[in-house]
């Protein structure tokens, strides 16, 4: 399953980078994040409760940041499972200097899902993933640009 998206920020790439990879910001902006604990440099265990309408599920997983080149690009690797199913995926994130102190963040995600959520809900998953990604970056945007932005 491909999940792509482009998001713009009114801040320079260095600033956007520092917020996007700040554990406190991640914890606050990941939709449904119940807990996130560091287990080493750029690795975390995370628990989240996400879903749409009444189809909610809790997932436990490992998240790691790899191939990080501040402020240009990084990869986020996710491996999680919960009662509704499991997910494994990689998001490649590119920060592009858009000039005038603005940054465009390009996300190319590729994920594999399985379990009951897949057998009955496969048609719901890509739009749900896209919605959650949008929520995450909108929350990050508020954090990067401040309440006035």
């Amino acid at each position, binding site marked *: 399953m491909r999940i792509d998206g482009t998001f713009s920020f009114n801040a320079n790439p260095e600033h956007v980078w520092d917020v996007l990879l700040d554990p406190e910001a991640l914890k606050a902006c990941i939709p449904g994040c119940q807990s996130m604990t560091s287990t080493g440099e750029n690795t975390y265990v995370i628990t989240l409760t996400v879903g*749409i*309408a*009444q*189809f*909610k*599920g809790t997932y436990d997983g490992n998240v790691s940041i790899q191939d990080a080149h501040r402020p240009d690009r990084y990869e986020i690797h996710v491996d999680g499972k919960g*009662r*509704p199913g499991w997910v494994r995926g990689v998001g490649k994130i590119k920060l592009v200097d858009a000039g005038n102190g603005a940054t465009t963040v390009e996300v190319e995600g590729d994920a594999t899902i399985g379990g*009951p*959520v897949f*057998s*009955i*809900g*496969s*048609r*719901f998953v*890509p*739009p*749900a993933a896209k*919605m959650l990604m949008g929520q995450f970056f909108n929350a990050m945007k508020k954090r990067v640009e401040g309440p006035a932005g």
Partner: protein
Amino acid sequence: MHPAPFAYKAAHSVEEALQLLRSHEDAKILAGGHSLIPALKLRLTQPAVLIDISKISSLRGIRRENGKLIIGSGTTHREIEQSHLVAEASPLLASVAPQIGDVQVRHRGTFGGSLAHADPAGDWPAAALAVDAELVIAGAHGTRTVHASEFFTGMLTTVIEPDEILTEIKVPGEGTPGIYLKHRNAASGYATVGVAVTATHDHGRIGTVTIGVTGATPVAFRASIVEHALNGHAVSAHLLDEAASHAADGLECLSDIHAPAAYRSQLVKVMVRRALGKLLHA
């Protein structure tokens, strides 16, 4: 599979159902159960309490009042399919009902349940949008009425709050010609794409066209670009071709193993064109 344990409460009036909703955390309304029960069995949803509203007689039935057709939310698809009143007052609804699921499903599944569930492939949302249905929602402080255009807020999501119940749906009852065309998923019968269209015309001139589309995107929508291109113009095959060719402009279509996004997008255009042709004879 078996569902996780839940408590079952049968309500016998809307008041009682609202009271039960308020007094239980994590409660879910059960109507026909044709979306909820499969999800319960797969444990994709695990409400603590189910409140059965299928025994509330005031939620069932079809009547005409002040020129409007008023359908109780608990009315089954089959009751709509077999209603002479619906056939006369809303040809579009009469066209949708027999195309839902199979006859067993239509005997249990409800009009209101389908609308409140807001499945991206559900049939009724397209029709509700095309006839600009008014949805009556009851809550602690009385009822409120929401137009279909504001009712669906996203995939599987509507403006109904957790402590509210959809009670009635009002649709225009002037008998405006309408048709529902559906490309069925071969296995499930769900709409890969479904288009619900109403159209009036007089002496070769189009009056008003309304088009609701389901299945293509996370939430059903009105194809307003096409409507604007048609309203008030003289009917011609060329005009319908041209207008329908824009039916998928700007859409981000769903994609799955049955139909990739580009296929759904093409289906939207083709099916809008076919429905217009049938109603406007061009």
